[in-house]
């Protein structure tokens, strides 16, 4: 079984202007084992 999560997350002004950096950052890597409640990603004010 598989779960797919699709969500909007904050992006910085620089992204709006065309730069590639994003305010939301995933804290995972492909192939990582993850458990319920562990962070998938974070963003900063």
């Amino acid at each position, binding site marked *: *079984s*598989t*779960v*797919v*999560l*699709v*969500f*909007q*997350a*904050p*992006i910085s002004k620089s*992204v*709006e202007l065309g730069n590639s950096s*994003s305010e*939301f950052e*995933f*804290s*995972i*890597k*492909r*192939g*990582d*084992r*993850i*458990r*319920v*409640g*562990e*962070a*998938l*990603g*974070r*963003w*900063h*004010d």
Partner: protein
Amino acid sequence: TSFFKKLQTTTRARTSFNGGTGPSRGDSFLVPGATAATLLMLGVLHARRLYDDKKVEEAREKGIEFEFQPDVKASFLRLLPLRSISRCWGFLTGVELPVWLRPYAYRAWARAFHSNLEEAALPLDEYASLRHFFVRSLKEGSRPIDSDPRCLVSPVDGTILRFGELKGAGAMIEQVKGFSYSVSSLLGASSCLPMIAQGDMQEEVSEQESTVKEKSKKSWWSISLASPKVWDPVSARPMKGLFYCVIYLKPGDYHRIHSPADWSILVRRHFSGRLFPVNERAARTIKNLYVENERVVLEGLWQEGFMAMAAVGATNIGSIELSIEPELQTNRPRKKLLPSEPPEERLYEPEGVGMMLKKGDEVAAFNMG
């Protein structure tokens, strides 16, 4: 060993009851012989699976990415009555086991699929069947929820297959290298996925600014989805800041789904599709795997905007049970031959507010069969 000893004692007793005649003596070897052959076959299959997993793991570590390659086995799968097989599997695993056998059976399962039995909420002999054991809940505190308000947590135990930002026309998620599927096909054509027409790119920034201002006036959950945007998935592009994450649950994983954030679920869609396996090999060989399989999509809003979660079933884990809507039944016998039926949709009450869930709340569970 004790199981075999018991089996031998039973067969010996039967032989002596029949008077120890020739034919009954011969028959007595059939049961242990068949059992041993089955166990041997299961062992070989498991060893092969471990070997394949190891190979995939090694390839991933080396940075080798598997490409999409349809094969004969995948085509053959389309001919099989996978839904009936899944339901039959569910029936078999739902058979109540004798109390003495339960710990052995569940320990064997845990050993084969690397489950942690110490986390199970109940003693092993209290799980009446493998199906019951499979969807076991965990001891209090086994899964601490990250309390950082600026983080999104994993809704399940599993392996990260893909993640990233949705960009470009159609908002596509890569299944494997060389094949992608669109998010709108996964979530449903009536989804409120935040997309913009390509011609409106210039207006996007000012539009987003005004949306943010508007949002700050209202509380985030009170934004109604009563008038969804009409868009063309081919020419439309996702609004900036739309992300995705695909997590695969192995048979030994904890199979309950929790809320990844505080959010309000407004709509539930049930796609009664096929039930292909969803393992790594299937993802490499079956096109549109996640779009064709039976799934339940929950869609709503969280503090940062749109959020949707799709729970995709598989042959062995075919039914999805929602704790927020226990009456929903999935993996039902099909009435129509065509797999492309429109999804069954339900709007949660009250309209525009929906069902509020806290980060870490239990949302659903995957059941065997």
